């Protein structure tokens, strides 16, 4: 809360809970931004891998499983890659939906808190 002139509205337990909730949402938002960045990179990497596979004409591909590169027939690799791409795309979609939801909730809370406290509270990113 801002250091005001002392003549602002009293903070009730409900207000405190709203402030806490806003804090939690904000933290989750930052985490999500990081996770979304990683998910986008993963998607790009899988796309690149797919392209490389198409370009190469080898029958046996070295596919990374764990810490080793297993020799796998090209078709198996294609199937696995498709599955991985699908999973990665779904994950990214899920994360972006969560982000949308959180942003909406934060807008609502801002309305409530600014409504009551006006200048006495600052909910912006510094």
């Amino acid at each position, binding site marked *: *809360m801002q250091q005001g*002139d*002392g003549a602002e509205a009293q903070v009730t337990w409900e207000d405190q*809970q709203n402030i*806490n909730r806003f*804090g939690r949402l904000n933290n989750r938002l930052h985490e999500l931004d990081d996770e979304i960045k990683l998910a986008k990179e993963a998607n790009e990497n899988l796309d690149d891998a797919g392209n490389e596979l198409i370009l190469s004409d080898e029958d046996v591909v070295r596919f990374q*499983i764990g810490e*080793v590169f*297993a020799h796998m027939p090209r078709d198996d690799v294609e199937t696995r890659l498709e599955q991985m791409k699908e999973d990665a795309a779904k994950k990214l979609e899920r994360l972006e939906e969560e982000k949308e939801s959180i942003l909406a909730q934060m807008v609502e809370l801002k309305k409530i808190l600014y409504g009551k406290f006006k200048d006495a509270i600052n909910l912006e990113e510094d």
Partner: protein
Amino acid sequence: MAAAAASTPQGVTERRGIPAASFVEDVESYLRQARLDVNSGLAFLQERLQQYKIVEMKLLAQQRDLQAKIPDIEKCLDIVASLQVKKALGEALTADFELSEGIYSRAKIEDTDSVCLWLGANIMLEYSCDEANALLKKNLENAKASLEVLVADLQFSRDQQTITQVTIARVFNWDVHQRRSKQATKET
């Protein structure tokens, strides 16, 4: 376990060793009951805030460890599954692996009845593929469950920090208000 959002007044008083920050209904009565003047009150609250921050740092470190551990276990499960697939096909698994930094070698893995699992503390045990699967799955579940608990701990700790920060601001503002009123009455 009450992992609800409510902390106080009608809720949780602590969570796994982390004390809850008590919500102050009215600053004046809070200071009077605690028999603290404004500066001591602020000092006490600041110290509490620091303690919460230390707890948060510790929890964040644990969270990072767990978040690194989970993909590792998943990779292990992946490779055990691959070995089992190959065994079912009656084929050997040819793999290129890192012998030393930048140097790779080729291995042909034929007998895939068992794997060795690193258990930590310089101990490696041999397990059948099925046993290894079961053990790894259990470890994965435990890690995920621990992570969930940890995330809830972190949220609780951050909530207490927020409550404490708001209380500090309110005590400070109350003090400013008091001084202004006293000043006003003096001048009249």
